[in-house]
């Protein structure tokens, strides 16, 4: 997973701390984002053959290749369910999120 780490945003205290113009540097994350996920995808590593179709099709980019198979970044997964439908080997099942 090569997403940027989540770092706390330090609120500017003085007007001169603000950037010039409404711009900011890219790749700066201040919070994770998965609050509205109602179902959680679980990968069955025994059924997964590492075809990486889910990695291609995940609209959030939270599925990533790992040791020939795939893994999910739950900090940003929204639980849309596309990976479960895409998987031809039924290796991704969904369980209810309880948090």
């Amino acid at each position: 997973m090569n997403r940027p780490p989540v770092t706390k945003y330090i609120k500017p205290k003085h007007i001169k701390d603000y950037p010039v113009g409404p711009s900011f540097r890219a790749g700066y994350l201040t919070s994770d984002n998965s609050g509205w996920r109602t179902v959680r995808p679980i990968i069955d590593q025994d059924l997964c053959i590492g075809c990486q179709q889910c990695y291609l099709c995940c609209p959030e980019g939270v599925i990533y290749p790992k040791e020939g198979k795939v893994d999910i970044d739950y900090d940003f997964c929204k639980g849309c369910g596309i990976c479960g439908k895409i998987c031809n080997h039924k290796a991704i099942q969904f369980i209810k999120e309880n948090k």
Partner: protein
Amino acid sequence: MVRLALKVLGERTITVVPAGCMSAVGFIYPQLCFSNNAIISTFPGTASMLSGIAAAVKAKGHKDVHVLGIAGDGGTADIGLQALSGAIDRGDKIIYICYDNEAYMNTGIQKSSLTPFGAKTTTTPAGENIRGTLTSKKNMFEIVAAHDIAYAATASIGYVQDFINKVYKASLVEGPSYIHVFAPCPTGWGIKTDETFEIAKEVVDSGLWYLAEYENGEFFLNKNPKEFTPVENYLRKQNRFKHLHDEDIEQIINARDSKWERMRRQWNNK
């Protein structure tokens, strides 16, 4: 769709996004969903901003930078059409991707000129006398191709590899290129989020959308199904088409058949 396009084009890409869902969810200060340079343009000005950036890239002497615009159907076919036409005419080296979800979804599902016949939107509600949108979908792909553009293509997120190949092809072109991607919107269409891929695949299989390319002055059909899957199955899955009567569906099928008859007659298979 955006993620895949940027995977193909790489980090040295400058992205321009006009008003739309992409800029609403992608640019929440100080966070940015892009890890490359990205900028929000005015609603009609995606293509003119692309032109400006392409000129700057040229002046700086960069050879390895791609200039990518990602606009919705309203920002392309209605509001941004003039700027897009100008940029294609100037022959700037830009890549323009239109993600077509067939209405102004970000502002609350208003009809655009790419909304298909029969679809229910908040500005074309379905009642007893008028059943949704009365006009048919603007032929954006052929409008762009009529500029004699260097490369134009249609794609669907249901056919991922085809889309990736087309973005790669567009990146090699010296001059403007345009890709029109069919991208379902769960909220606006009344479908479940996990159905988006199936719907985007089915629309191609049922013949209501097509995969084609335009290059060197010629049209190519990438996928020419011998038999279409039933249009009803595709339409009935979506809330926006729920109200349609059988004769409306008949009309949609007739429009599809005459379009395919023309495409098969005039375009090359590939």
